[in-house]
């Protein structure tokens, strides 16, 4: 008796263990629905932040690499340069001559070079270099600008 009753009750219990009640499922779905949306939003926001960070770093690197290339231009070859996109630069500032890779499509790199003397007047022997990197925020499509300035003397 005892054994049977155990078996019977065991069968009954086993049936109850493997099933979910509708209420349970409804509650679980409700909780999930409450949480999934913000978590998803959080993930997409994070994605945006990561893109932004990556873009900022790329912009900084793009500016630095161009300035590093410009540092190697001989003093004799240095000359003023109105604000211009890097791909349109002529010698001696052509990217190929400077051994600098072009900017990725998403980025626009512009450079301006102004000769200055120590008193701040135009002339030389210094060249005030301003590199502007522009790109669009990947989600908001708003333009972002990053500018670096340096003084160059030209290589000996």
């Amino acid at each position, binding site marked *: 008796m005892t054994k049977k009753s155990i078996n019977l009750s065991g069968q009954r*219990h086993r049936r*109850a*263990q*493997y*099933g*979910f*009640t509708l209420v*349970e*499922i409804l*509650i*679980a779905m409700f*909780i*999930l629905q409450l*949480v*999934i949306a913000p*978590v998803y939003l*959080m*993930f997409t*926001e*994070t*994605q945006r*932040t*990561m893109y*932004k*960070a*990556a873009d*900022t*770093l790329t*912009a*900084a690197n793009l*500016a*630095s690499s161009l*300035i590093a290339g410009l540092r190697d231009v001989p003093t004799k070859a240095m000359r003023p340069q109105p604000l211009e996109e890097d791909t349109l630069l002529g010698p001696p500032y052509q990217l190929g001559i400077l051994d600098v890779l072009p900017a990725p499509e998403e980025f626009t790199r512009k450079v301006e070079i*102004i000769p*200055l*003397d*120590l*008193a*701040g*007047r135009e002339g030389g*022997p*210094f060249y*005030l270099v301003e590199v502007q990197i522009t790109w669009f925020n990947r989600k908001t499509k708003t333009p972002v600008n*990053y*500018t*670096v*300035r*340096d*003084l*160059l*003397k030209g290589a000996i």
Partner: protein
Amino acid sequence: MKTRSGFVLPGVLMLVCILILLAATRHYFSRNQLIQAAHGAHYEKAYHLAVGGLDSADELFMKAVSYFNDSRAETMPKIAKAPPELLPILKALLDKDGLPYTRKEFIPIQPAVFKHLQSSWENFATLKVEVELKDLETLVIPSAPGPVSDEREKKILVMLHAEASINGAVAKVCRYREAKLVNILPSILGKFSLYLRQQGSLDNNSFVDTFAGTGGLKDTPLIVYSGKSTGFASLKPEAAADFFESQGWIFLGGDAPWIVGSGPGGGSGEHASGMQMNDQQMFPIPAQDDFSSLGFLAYYSQPEFLAVDLKKPLYNQAFRDVNNDQLFSSRIRISGSRITPTPTNIVGKAIYRWALIQGFTNTATQKFAPFPMLKEPQFPGGNWPGMSQNAAMTVEENFAGDFKRYSARMSYLIEENYNSINLRALKFPSPPLSTAIQIDPISISDKDRPGTSRRLKVDTRPATFIDVNHGNSYQVCRDDGKVLFDGNLSGFEDLRHFLSKAGESFDEPVDFFKKIKNKEKENVISNIYYIKGDLLIDRPLKAKDGCGGMVLVGGNITIQNEIVAPNLETIILISLGGNIRIATSSKIQAGLIALKGSIQAGSSLNVEGILSARDLSMSLLSPLGSRKLLYNPNFDATDTQIYNRGFRFFMPEEGITFVQ
């Protein structure tokens, strides 16, 4: 049992927790990444701002240093004449003596280009550039007797600090160099236009001179112009001390006296000895002499250069019995030439030798009969050179057979302390000439004597400019009293302490020439260089921008090309252990120093500077050639103003840059 079937809820909750945790973590790290990226981007801007600031400050600093190193008169005094853009930094760098000095505080630099770096850009950008000057070590001369150290000569660490900050991202960049603040004047040697420690193997009086024109010469003497010329008798006694003090002096070392024979230089005023007064003097015949009754006769005295011609009929064989060697003149004309006499101060045992022609003159006919130089045994008997026996006997009778009376009137060779010839440059109210024309320094009244030297003491006594300046111990001072040298000038030969001043060192001359070649392909001396072996100067050397410098060479120096110092800047070539050979007639505007060896003039010599050596040797040279040494007063280390102008701040062009 029922409760076990609700396992889905905890599971979902757990999943939710995991999702939230994942999302939060990802969000946290991405935010952090963004912050880092933004900071990195700002740092990149700050770094470029700092490097730009550092470069411009460095340029300004280097310009200030170049300006400091420019010793041209138009840049003196430094602060007053400074260009506007350099004025603030020079004011900060230089002390009251006009020299850079080390200190604990940093010196701020604000070039105008900084404004362009910062203007209309980042709101929170700041840039600060400062210079730090830090003592490293003093360049000390060994404490043996001799040259005295100047504690201002030292090694200095120059550090430029640039700090830029943009939106909290701070970049610090530093550039350092080891600089040397040194004086490029060659110590007291710069005071001496000619400095010879000993006479050398060649006889000083080996120049076979003649009155008969330069065509008769076999050689050309070295003419030393030690500064300003006075002409004759143009110096006032009260101005004399200052005059002699500022001339380039001459040191003739060694124990044996230097007998400097005067010479006519082949009849050329350019080659003849300076300071030889040729004014003829007439003296009435005193009553005790027989010919006193003849009113048309008088005694005369005529100073004359030394030449073998004095033995010949042109001079009535007045010096026939004198040894030729005594009539040869010196290879070196110490007081300039006859046309341009430059009186100077001789330090050492120097004697001036010249001839005095004396005899009868007929004042009516202007004819002269010189009396020959005789020894006492020759006097009686009438066997005199250049005269008939009768004439000789007549002259003997005139002096009543008294050789002593004759010898006062006969022609003879005079040897006097060399410096006493300086009296001939003085304008005495009435020249106190003795009967023998010589000016005896003892006979000069105190008021007519030039003052003593404030820059030279010989055996603790102030030197005079008209007496012998020779002793065992010499003290050379600047005009402000600072002692530059204390010891025996003859023993001063070791210049190795100059090596501590060297800014650049080379194993091979080729590296030296490579280093000094500038963009215009000129070989410009603008530092103190040390070359370990020999140096052959086969291309022009040049000083530029008032800087000058020094070349120290371990071995021999051979000069085959010109050395040009456009504003008489000081260029010094020193052979520390060898000789200097001059194998060019081109102009050498430099000081040549070989205290352990010789200066060998193989050809013409045209030096504007100084010559210092153990001894001087000269090859025979055609009389058409010339040997000239002009003193460059910019070498005068005893003049405080000039001495201070000799300071240079030498440092490498390229500094070492690092990011802090």
